[in-house]
């Protein structure tokens, strides 16, 4: 095998597939190298949250642009990805918490964005009638919601292929070297060459960055989710809570997905995670605290996806600082799903135009070098 292409994307998760799709829209046929199968890890098994609410200030321009795409996701991928936009709330139990959330809204507004608002308790209980009594209000965005991640990954993949991308499963990159006209990737399935290489390798992204002498402090972690048996509809919104690790939503089929970044024990070398039920005990306590009617509901399954976390919990997006023709998009720290359509567009612009209109300076890979020196 000795294949040559314009762009090689490492990693068949949502970021890689989205990048391939956006390149395809502009006539560039990318090759995606995926070491397992597309969407195998975090991309396929995450909670599917479409959340603009309570994000890092640096991510706001991207998340708002991404939300516009999700609203009409069918235009991008010919599939609705089971998107539901019924809003997300972050509940406050005390006035102090609500004041903190109000300060947050003010900070967002100072940046010129209006998508977050405070709602009073009356509005909150109208939106979330089964919520335990005594909550004083919430941070709210009516346009947030969720999608089904594996469906989204599948839709992005199909559309990318339809636009000319080639997805190669079971291809693991072993080494990279510079060649006359770009880069040569040595893999377990032969050599692949391209002028441009995009690192969308998720939890494994640092393995590739290190090959370029551009190591970053990325930590692979395995956040856990639980799903319950099906229940009659009782909740339209996704619910979080200030001061708690909670993400709580009912799917269209009636099951309830419970998250909140409770971590499984991860054996990264063997790619195996062991669910930590002592930790999930806390998660179950949080659920019964806010939704007491859930006490007798059965948990059907729990699982964990392997994701890359950065120390500042915001991703690396942009050009390599060490090598021309290399681009990065990784380290989304368990909240990349919503950003995926815009990140693919940003990368396609960086590759083809050398620039993007969106402010990506905060995600520059060099921020870690500076703090070290």
């Amino acid at each position, binding site marked *: 095998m000795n294949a040559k292409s314009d762009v090689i994307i490492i990693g068949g998760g949502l970021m890689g597939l989205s990048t391939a799709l956006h390149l395809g829209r502009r006539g560039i046929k990318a090759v995606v190298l995926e070491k397992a199968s597309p969407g195998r890890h975090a991309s396929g098994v995450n909670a599917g949250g479409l959340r603009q609410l309570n994000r890092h200030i640096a991510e706001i321009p991207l998340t708002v642009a991404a939300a516009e795409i999700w609203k009409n996701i069918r235009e991008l991928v010919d599939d609705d990805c089971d998107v539901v936009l019924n809003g997300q709330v972050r509940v406050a139990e005390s006035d102090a918490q609500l004041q903190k959330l109000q300060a947050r809204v003010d900070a967002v507004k100072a940046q010129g964005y209006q998508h977050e608002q405070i709602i009073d308790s009356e509005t909150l209980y109208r939106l979330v009638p089964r919520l335990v009594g005594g909550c004083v209000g919430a941070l709210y965005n009516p346009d947030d919601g969720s999608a089904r991640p594996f469906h989204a990954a599948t839709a992005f993949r199909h559309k990318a292929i339809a636009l000319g991308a080639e997805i190669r499963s079971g291809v693991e990159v072993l080494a990279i070297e510079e060649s006359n006209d770009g880069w040569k990737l040595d893999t377990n399935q032969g050599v692949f060459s391209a002028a441009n290489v995009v690192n969308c390798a998720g939890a494994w992204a640092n393995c590739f960055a290190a090959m370029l002498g551009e190591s970053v402090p990325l930590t692979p972690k395995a956040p856990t989710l639980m799903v319950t048996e099906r229940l009659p509809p009782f909740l339209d919104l996704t619910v979080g809570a200030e001061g708690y690790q909670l993400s709580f939503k009912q799917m269209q089929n009636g099951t309830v997905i419970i998250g909140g970044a409770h971590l499984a024990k991860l054996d990264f070398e063997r790619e*195996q995670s062991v669910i930590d039920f002592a930790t999930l005990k806390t998660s179950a306590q949080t659920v019964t605290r806010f939704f007491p009617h859930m006490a007798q509901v059965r948990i059907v399954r729990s699982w964990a996806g392997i994701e890359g976390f950065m120390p500042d919990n915001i991703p690396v997006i942009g050009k390599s600082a060490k090598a021309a023709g290399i681009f990065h998009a990784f380290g989304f720290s368990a909240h990349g799903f919503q950003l995926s359509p815009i990140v693919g567009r940003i990368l396609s612009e960086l590759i083809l135009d050398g620039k993007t209109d969106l402010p990506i300076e905060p995600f520059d890979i060099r921020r870690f070098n500076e703090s070290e020196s």
Partner: protein
Amino acid sequence: MERHELIVIGGGPSGLAAATTAANAGIECLLIDEQANPGGQIYRAVGTIPEQRASLLGPDYNYGRKLVDQFNQSSASYLPGTTLWNLNSQREIGILRDGQASLISADRIIIATGAMERPVPFPGWTLPGVMSAGAGQILLKSSGLVPAQGVVLAGVGPLLLLLAWQYLHAGVKIHAILDMSPSGNIWRALPHLPGALLAHHYILKGLRYQMQLKMAGVKFFSGVTEFHAVGGDLLEAVEFTHRGGRKRIDTHLLLSHFGVIPDSHLSRCAGCDHTWDANQLCWRPVADKWGNSSVDGIAIVGDGSGIGGAVAARHAGRIAGFEAARALGRMDEKQRDDAAREDQGWMRDDLRVRPFLEARFHPPAELLSAPPDETVVCRCEEINAGAIRTAIHAGHKDANQVKFLTRCGMGPCQGRQCDNAVSQIVARELGDKKMISGGYRIRPPIRPLTIEQLAALDEGADPK
């Protein structure tokens, strides 16, 4: 966390033998059992059953009493009525007893969870009135319940004959017995007959059951194909092809059975390696001759490691008990080898009949791998075979990807009912004879656990 030297999971013949053997070697041992009394499925309720029903169930069943007595006399402790909702590679176990969930752990674990009936998605299998023969036998063993209005027995495997024989003696009307084993099976089985004759008692027993049933006037149909259970809200009849003609038999109860396969949910949840067994058409944990799995300190014995029957399971349990004694420092290798030699010989002899039985009762491959498009495969999520094929041909090339896309196997049964069939549909559609694509990854809790039970989890004080 409460920690034991050895935890044995399951109170059937292999579990009882393993726990008794290890305890007698001086090991502190806890046996966890989902049942209320020791005996497992095969010797269900053996310690408490009335004499009259016991004699109906035959002499093999009564042998179980001896095993239970030996276990009761050993120093092993017994935790009945306990469901197990997790086992991980670090040998931590999640249990649920009287509504209280707890985490416990052990230096060594022996999985002895036995077999389950092979689920087969034939047209109409989800109709009320269709049950498994195993469920019929559980009702007979534990409460003496028998079908009042007669029954059709259909499928493949020795249990059908045994249950028919037991029903005959209990006065149940048997409308018909439909044998779906492919007609070529008998020829494929013949080369294995000389080996099987060394365990001839099994074969004689089968022939005796069959003869008595025929003498009692029970109708047998062999080489049955295109089998359908039909009805509206309830089962009304079975329809099938026999000798080229379509036949219908009215019945409100169908007990079907297609052999048994290892119940591998627990060993897969623990991360043990499994392999596809083409003779038994099922996933089977990889284990060495002592029962050791690929995960350190976890052994798997009995039918849970590959179907061998109750007698072989008992020997395998003893062998694993001796190996536990070695691993936990009570025996050296030579002492273990000497202690286990007799059981290894008996087990070898007993297993000689298996290649014959596996060939004779090999289920028709297309029954598992080629259900009609409209037949429901995953009954929890109501996913039919057509939807699974569509997913496969849209590029989802293993059981887990099919599961992600279709929700097949994501319901409360955790894929117990559809896992095997989906694996084989994937293999058939992709022309993958080796079943390399793998079965579902199994995620805890593997038995129902409520939010409240998890919120009240007893993790136990950490010894550190």
